[in-house]
């Protein structure tokens, strides 16, 4: 699954069969390299959906058990949201100081949320571990 694919997708509560909101981005923990939450817009109860509360990602909707799954950001997610956490549009830098280009998309595993690749204007970087994401760019360590 890619960030650009999930963006805008409807979030549907399975229990009530009601659309809760729409995906408006992902929250990635740059130290662990996993998606920890989805940002949701249009939901009355909040703007954050923890990855653990996603019950399924289908071609047409992101499924949750109940509308209450969307709430306010807490703990690590709130901490990440307080930083320059957005990946898209940032420079991709190696830990050895080489610029690999601008990030245009992020690929992640639909099951465990692990970031599997970063897409830049020049191509796909799949052989790297995430280290950080800050004001200047996204930092990765490439596999030797």
């Amino acid at each position, binding site marked *: 699954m890619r960030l650009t694919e999930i963006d805008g997708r409807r979030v549907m509560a399975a229990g009530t069969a009601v659309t809760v909101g729409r995906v408006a981005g992902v929250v990635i923990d740059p130290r662990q390299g996993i998606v920890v939450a989805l940002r949701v817009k249009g939901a009355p109860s909040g703007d954050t959906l923890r990855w653990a509360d996603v019950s399924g990602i289908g071609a047409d909707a992101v499924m949750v058990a109940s509308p209450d799954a969307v709430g306010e950001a807490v703990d690590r997610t709130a901490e990440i949201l307080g930083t320059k956490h957005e990946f898209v549009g940032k420079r991709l*830098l190696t*830990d050895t*100081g*080489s610029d690999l280009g601008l990030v245009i998309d992020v690929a992640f595993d639909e099951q465990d949320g692990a970031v599997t690749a970063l897409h830049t204007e020049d191509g796909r970087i799949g052989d790297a571990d995430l280290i*950080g994401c*800050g004001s*200047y760019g996204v930092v990765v360590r490439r596999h030797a």
Partner: protein
Amino acid sequence: MSALMQATALVGRPVVTLAGDEIGQVKDVVYTVADGRVTGFTLAGRGLLAGPLRRALPWAGVHAVGPDAVMIRDEDVFTDRDELAERTELRDHNLIGGTVLTEGGTALGTVDDVVLDIGASADVVGYRLVTSEAIPPAGRSVLLPLPGKVAASGEALVVPESVAGLVVDDLAEFTAAVRSVRSVPEGERSCA
């Protein structure tokens, strides 16, 4: 693995933490003349018109010097600018524009840049200079391998007579030249 680069090429390079935050940019390369070892960098703020920063980056805090950024572990690696300068006799800054004199008193040219060998440590291995008539044609930009220790001040750099013949045009030739200079036994070098 190490790489040769000129100090001026490092100036303006962004200093970025592994967490991806930009702290500033390299302003000056600071090193001790006695052993040619780079002790760190002074910093300027971000952006073209930014001024100097109080805090400086000691070499020990450098994670990697890359082609596009100087990477540092985190924001705890900094030291005070004055403290870094105190541990260092001279900044490359002061050498730029200085005269390169041989021990015999011939001016070879003026210092234009410093050549660094950057790996696990960073060392000054030579100078770029604009030649005088002593290395014709005058006004040429050449690289001079540094023959071990040299005497230097803000005014001049004194080098052995023999190095005049070792100047090269680019960094590719420089590597071989440095090797040949360093292979001369210590005793055969005349010390200033």
